[in-house]
């Protein structure tokens, strides 16, 4: 399939998708009218706040809130002793006397204003008994280590049993016994902060007459937030309503702390019978919200001297922090661990370990950024050991059309990776530069170019049901309304869905209005995550639009005195096929449709065909389709200061079908900077379980000045699994970037980097060591 873009643009024959239309929420956002949860006000509203733990691990011996309660302006103080249910989903606690990390909360306060709130929080008397804590995987797994969760049937020591996932293919032991070489390596990654610009906020509004609790929140998954609110208040879901406000970024992160914040606000609203707004400060957000899982990846690779991979084994250990609810991530991790390569024998084991540090959760890529870094570096080191050109090695072993991937899934859909590689290599002059830079004479500033290739299973796959609800209706004035259980997080999903409905009905997106997300208007459609929205989530609104269109065709047929199959709807006009002048505008048909009592709204459910995958055996068909990609990074390394200047990043992604190219490009640009941060900038510094880089003055996300030149190449392919053939892009956008940058640093310096992020401070230390071991070793290490 050709590239999408100017000149040789693909033409899939669409009228309203496959092109850029302005975002449907853009006008509200450029005028400042868009309301985020923190912007809301209600009559009689109180401010809520939380008392966070000053220790990584402690038991509250005594807590007394009498003084706080007596303060003027303080309307409610709730401690863990005052609530019926301490524990929430995924081990998290709403309020607790046993504090397992610094994000835990002992008490919450509602007050008339900010001063009273602070006074109230300060007046709560708490006596803590500090407990021994574990911070690293090694400490947590050591003999006799303090347990994060005692007497827990889901734990073996500090290992979280439920999080164990595996892949088994062939027989690795047999292969190791017979292959020419065995390469063993260990790679590590550190936690990454999502750094969405909007910190968590929620407003809970009680209605004592109806018993309904309404929570307005910037929640990435309003249904999950509803579950926590209903759970802590012990009221039915049907009496709990979460109305999603504009979400100021999520990247997978606005879930746990968001849900807890909503639940805590609701507790205070219930206690005071007044609306309560709870704002989370940036410092609290960084301390208590989830992070990208830090991975330790222990590899053993069997390879023959001709470069053919024989066996791949990895143990992936995640530091999940104190609590967790993302065991499913490890399914994805196990499937993707070996990368986009064909290897006959595979053994993957993935599991999480509890520690008294900040909790890990979903973050853009959901294990792939870590695994791609680890495996791509591993293959690069392996090629170097074999004395092979690393692209020859990669091309030899890469997954090819008709091949079988690492979890045993036969790849029956189109694999456009070779085409992506060829295009990007030609655009960047990759292979020439790679050789030239490897041979560059010693110097202060060294250039490097590197690449990473990868694939991503689209949607949730065999992880959990990828089902969703979609609703479409028309009004008598011809306007169209969409509702969906999938939600806008800033990624542009409302716009994509609007385009998809426009395409299906064949009407202009301008007359389509997206409502939601409101949990009282449409059933739970699962989390908006895993880059599933457009690929899978939009299928339900497409089905609804198709059905609605059939009803409208019947009405139009009646008006034409014809049969429905003689009528078509094209670009907002109903035509009697074959009769050029017989045309009725959409709006007129909608009007008649309404006044003749025809069905004007359709809700449809979409559940993709079941996949044949066995978690027990560790293999099978894991995902309906995969999106392929490649990233090429070019860097300049200042060997005197350790500074890595990322000069250029070229990205090629398989979009299946591009729904909206501007939105896709925006996702990719943002993904590149996030990947750059993961590789060389974003260091989360922790000390005794406390995050010291707890605001944007110390946690370094990229500014506009750190922006490399980014070249985006979009490819389309022929797979039909996703809505109109679309594949995922939100996560692939960032997944391979860090790996490509690290590969470029290797090309520039000869250093194989085994732990990221590598900021200039760490890189300089590595360069110093390399120097001490003899400058010429550097040259020898370069291929």
């Amino acid at each position, binding site marked *: 399939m050709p590239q999408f873009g100017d000149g040789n643009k693909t033409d899939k024959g669409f009228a309203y998708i496959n092109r*850029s239309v*302005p*975002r449907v*929420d*853009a*006008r*509200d*956002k*450029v*005028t*400042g*009218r*868009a*309301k*985020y949860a*923190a*912007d809301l*006000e209600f009559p009689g509203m109180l401010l809520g706040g939380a008392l966070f733990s000053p220790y990584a691990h402690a038991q509250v011996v005594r807590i007394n809130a009498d003084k706080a309660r007596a303060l003027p302006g303080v309307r409610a103080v709730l401690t863990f002793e005052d609530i019926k249910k301490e524990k929430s989903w995924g081990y998290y606690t709403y309020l607790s006397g046993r504090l397992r990390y610094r994000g835990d909360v002992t008490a919450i306060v509602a007050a008339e204003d900010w001063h009273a709130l602070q006074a109230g929080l300060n007046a709560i008397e708490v006596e803590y008994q500090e407990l021994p804590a574990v911070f690293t995987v090694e400490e947590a797994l050591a003999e006799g280590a303090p347990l994060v969760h005692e007497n827990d049937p889901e734990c073996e020591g500090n290992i979280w049993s439920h999080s164990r996932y595996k892949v088994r293919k062939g027989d690795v032991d047999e292969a190791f016994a017979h292959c020419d070489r065995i390469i063993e390596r260990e790679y590590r990654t550190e936690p990454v902060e*999502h*750094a*969405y*610009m*909007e*910190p968590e906020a929620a407003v809970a509004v009680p209605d004592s007459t109806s018993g309904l609790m309404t929570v307005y929140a910037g929640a990435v998954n309003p249904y999950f937030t509803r579950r926590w609110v209903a759970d802590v208040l012990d009221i039915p879901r049907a009496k709990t309503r979460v109305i999603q406000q*504009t*979400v*100021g*970024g*999520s*990247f997978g992160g606005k879930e746990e702390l968001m849900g807890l914040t909503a639940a805590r606000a609701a507790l205070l609203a219930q206690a005071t019978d007044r609306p309560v707004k709870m704002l989370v*400060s*940036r410092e609290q957000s960084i301390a208590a919200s989830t992070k990208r899982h830090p991975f330790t990846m222990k590899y053993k690779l069997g390879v023959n001297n001709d470069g053919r991979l024989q066996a791949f084994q990895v143990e992936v250990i995640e530091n999940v922090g104190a609590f967790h609810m993302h065991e499913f991530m490890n399914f994805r991790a196990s499937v993707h661990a070996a990368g986009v390569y064909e290897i006959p024998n595979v053994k993957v084991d993935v599991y999480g370990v509890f520690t008294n540090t900040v909790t890990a959760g979903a973050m853009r890529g959901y294990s792939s950024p870590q695994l791609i870094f680890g495996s791509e570096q591993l293959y690069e080191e392996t090629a170097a050991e074999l004395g092979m050109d690393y692209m020859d090695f990669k091309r030899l072993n890469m997954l090819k059309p008709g091949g079988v991937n690492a979890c045993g899934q036969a790849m029956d859909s189109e694999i456009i990776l070779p085409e992506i590689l060829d295009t990007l290599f030609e655009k960047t002059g990759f292979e020439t530069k790679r050789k030239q830079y490897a041979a560059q004479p010693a110097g202060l500033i060294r250039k490097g170019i590197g690449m990473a290739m990868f694939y991503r299973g689209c949607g949730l796959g065999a992880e959990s049901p990828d089902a969703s609800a979609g609703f479409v209706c028309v009004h008598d004035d011809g306007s169209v309304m969409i509702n969906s259980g999938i939600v806008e*997080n*800033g*990624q*542009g999903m409302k716009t994509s869905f609007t385009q998809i409905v426009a395409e299906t009905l064949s009407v202009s997106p301008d007359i389509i209005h997206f409502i939601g997300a409101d949990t009282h208007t449409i059933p739970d459609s699962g989390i908006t995550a895993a880059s599933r929205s457009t690929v899978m989530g939009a299928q339900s609104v497409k089905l609804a639009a198709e059905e609605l269109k059939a009803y409208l065709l019947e009405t139009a047929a009646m008006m034409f005195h014809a049969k429905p199959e003689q009528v078509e709807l094209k670009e907002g006009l109903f035509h009697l096929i074959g009769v050029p002048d017989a045309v009725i505008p959409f709006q007129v048909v909608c009007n008649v449709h309404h006044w003749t009592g025809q069905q004007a709204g359709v809700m449809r459910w979409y559940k993709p065909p079941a996949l044949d995958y066995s978690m027990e055996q560790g293999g099978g068909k894991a995902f309906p389709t995969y999106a392929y990609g490649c990233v090429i990074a070019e860097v300049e390394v200042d060997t005197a200061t350790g500074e890595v200047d990322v000069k250029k990043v070229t990205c090629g992604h398989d979009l299946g079908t591009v729904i909206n190219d*501007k*939105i896709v*490009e*925006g996702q*990719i*640009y*943002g*993904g*590149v*900077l*996030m990947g750059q941060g993961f590789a060389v900038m974003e260091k989360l510094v922790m000390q005794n379980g406390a995050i010291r880089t707890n*605001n*944007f*003055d110390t946690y370094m*996300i990229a*500014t*506009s*000045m750190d*922006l490399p030149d*980014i070249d985006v190449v979009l490819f389309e392919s022929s797979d039909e699994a996703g809505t109109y053939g679309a594949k995922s892009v939100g996560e692939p956008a960032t997944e391979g970037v860090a790996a490509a940058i690290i590969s470029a640093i290797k090309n520039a310096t000869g250093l194989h980097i085994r732990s990221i992020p590598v900021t200039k401070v760490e890189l300089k230390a590595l360069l110093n060591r390399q120097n001490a071991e003899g400058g010429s070793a550097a040259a020898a290490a370069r291929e």
Partner: protein
Amino acid sequence: MLLHIILNGKPITAEIEPEQTLLSVLRNDLKHTGAKQGCGVGECGACTVVLDGRAIKSCTVLAAQCEGSEVLTIEGLAKNNELHPLQRAFIDHGAIQCGYCTAGFIMTALALLQRKPNATRGEIQAAISGNLCRCTGYVQIIDAIEAYAAALGEPPAKEGL
């Protein structure tokens, strides 16, 4: 204490506390919530407004120091529901994702181009370096500002008498 400012062209009086930041007064007292709080420490720039012609981070400015000043916020840009061309440029170039930072970028760009209508792409990139965005990777934001600057640079159409 009383604060008098010209907010988006209109004289306003507000009862404030001496230690309140300009952001707090705008959001909590004057109900102008277009400026956002993202960090509270003058880093993210989501709270950027134009104070006496210069873009500033309103979370690190004492409101009391703004007595008599002119403050321009995002709410003051669109006139009679007609978008400012800079707002239009942000929409046309896909410069918006979650939107939390958007107002801050627009205010920074506005102040830059008022002082320097012929700003180059590099100058635009430097000017917005105090505004963080986690979604967009800045590219389309820079495109939007550059397009608006280019439009400013074009000779204005001759107006008839």
